């Protein structure tokens, strides 16, 4: 808990000054607010005593000045408070975002994109809210509480003892309510999230619901869940609803005590121990004391609710990137050769199954290698080790004769370009997307890369050509076009090794062949590693690697494998059934 707070507070940084200033300004406001009733009581006393008019004016001016001071402090605290809390949130988002940039694939897998989004948005908003409460009200309320009591004692003397009765009642009541309601709220919020998740499922799967005619079934299911949420919520809310009457009870008790006990004091002392003005001020102080207590309990609830958000944020901040640069990194990749030596790999230490086992493979610089295998045969896993997106569990992966773990990460990844299976274009123009590969690329270089990737033709057909705006997720280009843009983007890196992870699946076989032809002719020195579903995509490779269940079962050329490997034969025939009419 303490470590967590420390970590969060570390994000306040340049807003430390305003964060500290806010409660100090608040002190100004609170002091004034507590003094005003005191001065007014005096004024009433003066009026009661039948003072001169000038005295009243004097008091009036003092009071007016005090209100102005209070307004000044209050308004200023409002400004610094929002600056501090918004700044704090800004730093939090910044730190989270930058930390995530350091994450390895393993770290990203651990959290999943959607949970990272929640942490950067909702959770930060919750913590920001709490922070604002904390610097504005968490200081203000106890101060108000103490000042009001002190003033009450100064003014009312013995009468202030009534707080000894009322405050514990309210404090105990509020505490009990908060303690009881909190776990209920925590569980019901979770249930509520689940309810919304199931609505979302329905919205997305409406075609399924309707085609199976499950509308009534879904309604029943929903109503049961909603009923459950409703009952739990009502239970929790009813407990919290006790706060209102409890607070009122204390206020009323305060009022009655003041009126009866107060009148006794005024009358029995002939107005010397206490005047009518003080009587009224005592009521005001009572209100201040009790409402600040109420505020405190609200903050308490708010903080515990956002504690979970804080935990989730700190979790991201404290996650150590599982891959780091070596101490004395190698900054040059000599050539595009790849060697796997006795490689075993599993995604987590606790997993009992190896995703890859006994991998030994040598790829010479400039070779074209095809990788084939069924779903779950770990093809993607294999190539991700080459650019060190994951670290091997045992054995060595070497690029250009050097263990990948000895390279500077950026050097390695710039030389080993991977076109991922789940590829993403970002909202922005085609040019902007391509420049991810090389920020300094000239327009000629961009066009050259697109020609190689067979993308220039369709890009030229767009009215705005290379300045065409790609919508989020590349929604306005087809799957095949997207894949070719992604290949062009990777080509712009001018890598020594180019890896295509099923990157031409949506491209027709003819274009696919053209891309491979371009690779052969224009980037012959680059090592090309191609994962594919289609035999035609790999059959002219220098060698084809067959993976099954995380092991290499065969390596060879198209002819060799066709003659000897059962899996290869199976795939080949399934794709060419009755097919001597295949153009390739």
């Amino acid at each position, binding site marked *: 808990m303490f470590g967590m707070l420390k970590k969060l507070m570390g994000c306040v940084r340049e807003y430390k000054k305003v964060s500290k200033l806010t409660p100090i300004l608040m002190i100004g406001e609170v002091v004034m607010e507590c003094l005003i009733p005191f001065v007014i009581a005096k004024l*009433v006393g003066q009026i009661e005593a039948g003072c001169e008019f000038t005295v009243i004016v004097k008091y009036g001016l003092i009071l007016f000045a005090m209100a102005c001071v209070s307004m000044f402090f209050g308004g200023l605290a409002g400004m610094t408070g929002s600056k501090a809390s918004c700044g704090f949130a800004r730093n939090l988002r910044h730190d989270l975002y930058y930390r995530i940039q350091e994450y390895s694939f393993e770290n990203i897998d651990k959290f999943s994109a959607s949970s990272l989004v929640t942490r950067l948005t909702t959770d930060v908003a919750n913590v920001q809210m709490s922070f604002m409460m904390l610097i504005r009200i968490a200081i203000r309320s106890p101060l108000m509480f103490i000042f009001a009591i002190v003033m009450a004692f100064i003014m009312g003397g013995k009468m202030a003892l009534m707080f000894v009765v009322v405050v514990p009642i309210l404090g105990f009541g509020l505490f009990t309510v908060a303690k009881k309601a909190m776990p209920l709220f925590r569980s019901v919020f979770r249930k509520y999230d689940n309810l919304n998740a199931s609505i979302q499922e329905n919205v997305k799967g409406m075609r399924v619901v309707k085609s199976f*005619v499950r509308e009534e079934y879904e309604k029943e299911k929903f109503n049961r869940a909603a009923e459950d949420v409703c009952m739990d919520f009502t239970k929790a809310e009813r407990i919290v609803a006790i706060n209102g009457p409890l607070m009122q009870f204390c206020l009323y008790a305060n009022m009655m005590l003041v009126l009866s006990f107060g009148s006794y004091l005024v009358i029995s002392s002939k107005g010397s121990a206490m005047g009518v003005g003080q009587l009224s001020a005592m009521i005001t102080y009572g209100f201040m004391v009790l409402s600040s207590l109420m505020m405190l309990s609200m903050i308490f609830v708010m903080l515990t609710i956002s504690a979970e958000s804080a935990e989730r944020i700190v979790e991201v901040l404290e996650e150590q990137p599982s891959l780091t640069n070596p101490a004395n990194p190698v900054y040059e990749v000599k050539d595009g050769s790849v060697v796997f030596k006795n490689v075993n790999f599993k995604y987590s230490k606790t997993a009992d199954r190896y995703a890859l086992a006994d991998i030994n493979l040598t790829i010479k610089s400039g070779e074209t290698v095809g990788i084939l295998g069924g779903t779950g045969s770990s093809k993607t896993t294999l190539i991700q080790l080459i*650019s060190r997106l994951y670290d091997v569990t045992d054995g060595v992966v070497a690029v250009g004769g050097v263990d990948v773990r000895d390279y500077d990460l950026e050097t390695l990844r710039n030389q080993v370009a991977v076109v991922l299976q789940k590829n993403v274009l970002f909202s922005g123009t085609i040019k902007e997307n391509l420049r991810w590969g090389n920020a300094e690329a000239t327009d000629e270089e961009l066009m050259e890369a697109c020609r190689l990737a067979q993308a220039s033709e369709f890009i030229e057909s767009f009215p705005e050509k290379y300045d065409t705006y790609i919508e989020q997720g590349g929604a306005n280009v087809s799957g095949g076009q997207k894949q070719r843009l992604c290949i062009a983007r990777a080509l712009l890196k001018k890598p020594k090794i180019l890896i295509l992870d099923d990157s031409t699946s949506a491209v027709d076989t003819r274009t696919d062949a053209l891309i491979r032809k371009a690779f052969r002719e224009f980037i012959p020195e680059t090592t090309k590693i191609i994962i594919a579903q289609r035999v035609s995509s790999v059959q002219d490779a220098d060698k084809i690697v067959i993976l099954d269940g995380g092991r290499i079962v065969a390596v060879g050329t198209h002819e060799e494998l066709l003659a000897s490997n059962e899996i290869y034969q199976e795939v080949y025939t399934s794709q060419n059934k009755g097919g001597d009419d295949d153009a390739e």
Partner: protein
Amino acid sequence: MPNKEMLKKEAEGKEMPMDGKMPGGKPKMKKGMLKRLIVMLFHFYPVLLPVIVFCIIFSAIVSSVPSLFMQNVIAIIEEHVNTGDWSTAKGEILTWVLRLGFFYLLSLISIFASSQLGAILTQGFLKKIRGKMFDGMQNLPIKYFDSHGHGDIMSYYTNDVDTLRQLVSQSLPNLITAAVTVTTVFSIMLYFSVWMALIVVAGVILMSFVTKTIGGRSARFFVRQQMAVGRTEGFIEELMNGQKVVKVFCHEKQSGLDFDAINDALYEDAKKANQYANMLMPILNNIGNVLYVIVALAGGLFLLSDVPNVSLSGKVFSISIIVPFLNMTKQFTGNISQVSQQINSIIMGLAGAERIFDLIDEAPEVDDGYVTLVNAVVAPDGTITESEKRTGTWAWKHPHQADGSVTYTLLRGDVRLNEVDFGYEEDKMVLHNVSVFAEPGQKVAFVGATGAGKTTITNLINRFYDIADGKIRYDGININKIKKADLRRSLGIVLQETNLFTGTVMENIRYGKLDATDEECIAAAKLAGADDFITRLPKGYETELSGNGANLSQGQRQLLAIARAAVADPPVMILDEATSSIDTRTEAIVQKGMDSLMEGRTVFVIAHRLSTVKNSDVIMVLDHGHIIERGNHEKLIAEKGTYYRLYTGAFELE
């Protein structure tokens, strides 16, 4: 295609809800929203609602009157303070205090009742309105879901219900309390002194002016803040989903800088919005304080200068009027600032209510079909009779209105489209003169580029959309006459984008037929070739799936979807890219299962991969809504037309 549009809408949708719901953005509120909301509340809770409102009003009145008691007590004190004789004053004072205590007791009871009942009412109301929304949503046509972003629909349930909760549980009760208190207090003020009441009114006018100026400014920046939040969230979502690409391209630094720019902009807008909001309270409070001072001053002035008091009570100025007046001033201004704090949430709540009512008011899917699907028994002589029990044989029950007779037609799975035209929008036809004849047991394949109209045809067969012209007959019956639920029950559909539901694997398969036994489900899974991977899951068929089966691969999800359709055992099946994510080798393995699944059924297949459709009885090649080629694989290859070129890879299927 609706799908692409959907995606686009969803992407844009993030910023859409803001227009309607932000305060100060001058939301165009339909008139009577509040009235409709109250009528609805009253309709749900005809007894509870009035009771709660009564309790709130009662406690508001009761908590405003203590000033009267106080005035009396102080008057007594004034009387006795010079003698210092407590014993004579004691009786009178205690009587007043006890009377006050009695009032307070009533007030406490009503506050307790209204807050407890209020919690029950609020949550009950929210549950009912959620239920109404969900029920209404289930009855909406598919068109609604294709034309509205999923994010938008979800925000009805999350954001809008939340604002409604705020409105019902806090803003409205507060508003009633404040209105009643202000009225009562003001009456009491007039009762004591008209002059001083007028001073308070002047102060209140000033306060509303300040609220309007500062509040308006704050609202303006809140709108900007919301927009910045939308931008930031959009950016975060996009980049978090593409984080692996960022890594692969070593783009971390640039991506960080891009984020900083957007993050800083959000900071600026958020800071300003909050500054104004934060300043409003202290300013209003202190105007309250100044007013308090002015009232005290004026009171003193009146007292000293012997200005004749004008009041309803006819009382003359005395300290016993000024003191309670000061308290009343505090109460009055306190309530005004309370209301000013509620204005934003009231506007937002009403905008939320409007959006919720829009969803509820959306026209449901119309189903005027009268031909129903019944269990049937076929006698040896061929006559069909209806059966109560599940017989495994189905028949269409066709009542004839003219003579009241009923005819039965055996469900066979004969689907014919006759010269069908269709467009998602009236003036933009996507299918032109399409005719397809599928005899029972035939496998019909559709091939063509995205947007050629393949999926559209299947959307018409199960009447997700209605055709513009032409006829579709199912076993010789015009499908417009068939009850939609029964029509859809007779069609099994497997879509490219598989949607699974939270629950176990078994429950997900059973979705196809709710009364299926475990054995039936397992048999269906085996048929679909899903049994193999299911048994390898940690808990086999009892493995819990969540987040649309996030722990399964796309291919595995598709296999489950096929099993789900298999257990329903419909005579007609539509496979829309159902095996697109299953690799060819696995597909070859499940092919046997798929073949036996398709056996004896009419099957419509849409597939990108031509190897999947090659063995169809008839292949339709679609282009821009026209069927340009039809025939089996051999015939189409021999024709050397579009299909041939597609097959040989000269065309790209996207």
